[in-house]
């Protein structure tokens, strides 16, 4: 009973800390420019070096001026949002297709050097992305894709982690079901679409959600591969908006967060299902 109380207290405390960031951002977005600058401007201008920013959450005066500036006065920040969408959507579709097929292949087919290739996959998962960036850059440069969105989309479509996740999940699907279907005359495509995909839906949903979160927040790849500030997604733009206009940074933070929150709320059950069934 005592253990339960302690864990509850820890969870509540962690939740409050996490929520504080969200509340702080939301409240900051409704402050006027003057108010935000007065309380937090020094952090970025260097005036508050060595000092703490004033603790101030509730706006003195409720203002949507920052929203007007960020979302109506200029389309620049919205273009960044659409840049994020233009990167996230193709990567999501590609990852789902490639990882599902790859995972299915590793889980249900026998072919020469299968274990070796799978080991290679695991090896790539273990490598940090920063290590992969240089060879990726060289390949994209050779293909003449540096500066284009494809230089980010293509490497991200081939996700070892996604293949691994789907592989883990599909291993649990009994081979007998597949055999039965084949005996009944189902083609491989039919087996895949009618049996494998419905069964693997939670894993695919988890993969999709994890991928969206990962791609939506990426920073290094656009910076290195796009080389054009106009094509940068909102995640990259947030970094410099923070230093130029903290008020707008709050608004962009909210805009940045809303799609992720809605996606998460939409698929949180499947995310848990997919991850837990892939692991067990």
């Amino acid at each position: 009973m005592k253990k339960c109380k302690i864990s509850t207290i820890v969870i509540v405390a962690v939740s409050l800390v996490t929520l504080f960031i969200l509340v702080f951002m939301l409240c900051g977005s409704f402050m006027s420019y003057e108010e935000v600058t007065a309380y937090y401007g020094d952090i970025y201008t260097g005036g508050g070096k060595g000092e703490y920013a004033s603790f101030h959450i509730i706006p003195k005066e409720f203002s949507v001026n920052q929203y007007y500036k960020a979302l109506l006065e200029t389309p620049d920040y919205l273009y960044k949002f659409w840049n994020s969408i233009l990167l996230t959507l193709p990567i999501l579709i590609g990852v789902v297709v490639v990882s599902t097929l790859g995972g299915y292949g590793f889980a249900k087919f026998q072919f020469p050097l299968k274990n070796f290739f799978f080991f290679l996959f695991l090896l790539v998962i273990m490598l940090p992305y920063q290590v992969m960036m240089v060879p990726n850059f060289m390949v994209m440069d050779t293909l003449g894709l540096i500066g284009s969105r494809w230089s980010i989309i293509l490497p991200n479509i081939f996700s070892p982690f996604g293949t691994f996740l789907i592989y883990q999940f599909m291993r649990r699907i009994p081979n007998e079901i597949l055999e039965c279907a084949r005996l009944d005359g189902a083609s491989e495509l039919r087996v895949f679409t009618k049996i494998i995909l419905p069964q693997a839906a939670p894993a695919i949903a988890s993969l999709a959600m994890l991928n969206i979160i990962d791609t939506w927040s990426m920073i290094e790849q656009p910076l290195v591969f796009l080389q054009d500030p106009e094509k940068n997604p909102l995640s990259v733009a947030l970094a410099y908006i923070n230093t130029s206009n903290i008020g707008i940074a709050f608004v962009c933070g909210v805009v940045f967060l809303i799609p992720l929150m809605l996606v998460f709320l939409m698929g949180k059950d499947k995310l848990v299902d997919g991850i837990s069934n892939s692991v067990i």
Partner: protein
Amino acid sequence: MKSKKLYGKLLIAFLILMLILTYVSSQIYTSNLPKVRLDTPQSGTITNTYDTQGIMEYKVKKEVTVPVDCTVEEIEAEGVFNLNEHTAVASFNMEELLLAKYDLEIQIENYETQMTQYGTDTPQYKRLVILKQNLEEELVKVDDMITNDGKLVGGDTGTIIDILVTEGQQLKAGDPVLTYIPAEGNQLSIKWTMTGQDALKFFPQDDVVVAFNATVETSAGRERLTKNKLCTISTKKNITLDETEFEIILDQNELDEEGISYSEGAGVSLRLTNTSFEYETVVPVGAVDTENSCVYMLQEVKKGFRTEQTVVSVPVRVLMQNDELASITGIPEGEVIVYSDQPIYDGDVVNVLETD
């Protein structure tokens, strides 16, 4: 399950909202941009007028002189304007003329005698021949005067400017009796001064030929208008920023045909119009940033989802300008910004207005 659908709908609604906001904000952004109008530079002339006051002068003036020393008895040309070969200028003392004639004849004989002492190829002989010829010419003139009862005639056609002698005046051989402008081949010059700054603006090149409209006002107060005479500005070398004297040359005959009366030293109201030179690149004067000596052109810059029209300044040299047009040099081919509703600078993003 219901909540999942709700979140899905919310996500779609959010994306639609973002789409609408993007459209609206890009419209607002575009409407706030400076609006500019473009035009293609064309070749053409630039008419500049310059009003000034000039002084009229005769380019060629001649004199009627007496051939020998003599005394003026009567001025015959008093009140006469036109001179011709037979116009009596003045009458001189007959006795003095006869004496002068004898003197000349004796001198000629002396020369002839001296000439026999030298060979025809010697310098002394040639000198004596020239001296003798001069005396013979004078003798002819004196003979003519004696034949005309002592009257000296014009011997040329032209317009009398001034009579320089008075009755009873003793004259030496070669002294002028009057000055006149010969009728054939005479020219008038009109001189004026203007600052080098104005001159450089008006005459971009040293040897430019300008069309000339002159409203000539003579001392008698008469006014005539010449018809776009092409005149060479003769004093254009070494133009400095200081006051410089300029001159145009007019044929007297042309002025006579136009009916313009003229007189030495008369004030002339000048309106100079330089319409003759064809410039390659002429733009409206508003297109030139005179402070920075540049024009503004546009460059298409692809920025993410949109293509922006960005202002690029191009340094130019203004060759000639008036209130409406300017001739420039140094720009690449293409359209230049000729109008902007706001001040524009290098790198500004602008909205291009459709031309009417």
